[in-house]
């Protein structure tokens, strides 16, 4: 349940990180349940932990505001004439 208190970036607690790992495991398991064998479960959880460690490094990295946003979408039109 989301708190009514407004919280800033980087406030995820140790408990929050553990919960995120569990939620991600549930997500992976939801997608691939029938393909994952018992002996693979802990290894997949380790991989998820690694992914989230990387994610946390990326989340805490500060973007330089002086650089433009990534902005490269161009709408497609087959006929170049007006």
């Amino acid at each position, binding site marked *: 349940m989301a708190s009514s208190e407004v919280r800033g970036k980087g406030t995820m607690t140790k408990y929050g990180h553990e919960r995120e790992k569990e939620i*991600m*495991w549930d*997500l992976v398991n939801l*997608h*691939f349940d*029938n*393909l994952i064998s018992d002996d693979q479960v802990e290894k997949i959880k380790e*991989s998820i932990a690694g*992914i989230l460690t990387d*994610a946390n490094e990326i989340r805490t990295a500060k973007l330089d505001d002086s650089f433009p946003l990534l902005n490269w979408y161009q709408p497609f039109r087959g006929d170049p004439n007006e």
Partner: protein
Amino acid sequence: MNKSPLFKNIRSIAKEIANKNISPIEITKYYLTRLNELGPEYNSVVTVTGELALKQAEAAEKEIMSGLYRGTLHGIPFGAKDLLATDGGIPTTWGAEPFRHQTFKYNATVIDKLCSSGAILVSKLAMIELAGGMGYRQPNASLTGPCRSPWDKNTWAGGSSSGSGSAVGTGLVPFAIGSETWGSILSPANNCGVSGLRPTFGRVSRYGAMALSWSLDKIGPLCLSADDCGIVLNQIAGPDPKDSSTSDKPYEYSVYSNQRKFKLAVLASASTGIDEEVADNFKKSLNALSQFCEIEEINFPEYPYEAITRTIMLAESGAIFEEFAGNGTATHLTAPEDKYGPYARTAVLAKDYLKALRLRDEISQKIDPIMSKYDAVCGPTRGTPASKLEDEFRGAIRGNAKDTLGALGNSVGLPAISVPNGFTKANLPTGIQFIGQVYAENAILNLADRFQQETDWHLKHPAELLEEI
């Protein structure tokens, strides 16, 4: 044949061919014999393309005898990593058991470009299954088994362009094509004692190559020298309407004057956490380089380079292999960890992937003015020499050292070349890498070439491989 082409550089073989001292048919038969005899010993070959090769060799011979000489690669055999599509019923296995019988009705652009120059495709070469993108942690991760280093059959050739490195280092082909998403050309170059070039992202078309990560994959040569890498790049570079990521910036390989001084930077943390012998060889290389380079120590801005590169690779490969992961095909891969590798990457959130892309864009713009001050930034190619075949490692990038140069270079698409720079006491090769500014391949090629003029590490070959078959 008047002269053996074994371990000769491309220019020497080309000269013999152009002077009609070596016939393309003879030279092709020579390498086909070596591929058939030695390929299985090193697990470096998937398919020997004998029939096609002899047909191409006959055509080359006819042209050359009639006075039509196409250039330096005319009549020269080569091998291609088995993720490059080839038509004519030749399998393209992606190194993976589930794709053992996969065929395409077209050639990868890089294959077409080489064949149109008169080069002769003699073999599809071994690779780590699915270019290592499933998270392998051991050399035995290919349908052809663990690929062996020319320097010790009990050690690994590196990956994922394992066969390309091993085949060049064992003299089964004069040059080979590999690909790199993160380390896949430089690692085999290091472990096999050969020269490997990772071109700038977008320099070489990837049409017809298995995609692992759209914004990271690059294709480049593995050769016996830096000069050979330049010759091959000259042929395979250039825009391709079939690959919209290719750059229209022109490329022509040019050789600098020997009087030229180079400006070289060394990453301050280059030797942190690496093997002592590797650090020692790197230090000796810096001494050799100081004869013709002005050398400065630098630091790059602080960013989580490895996390960024890994997140991009996992997110993109997760999308590319979505169907593969969902239909259970992964269970037929060789390495146990690859069988479940595709699943966890579902946990990469879109916002983290997009922030990684934004950080990469920022890094690319911040790094360029730094790179523009130097011909290259250098460091050891790998923190360790080739590992034992039975050894497991934490990831494809092994050892305790951070791979800042690899992560940064691959994420923003900087070109890099690895050349041999010495041996360990166990007689395993080590390498030095030179990373350049984007589209500045000539600077790093010439710097590496000059290093090879001052040293002879690239001219050393395992004694047992020097015997003719």
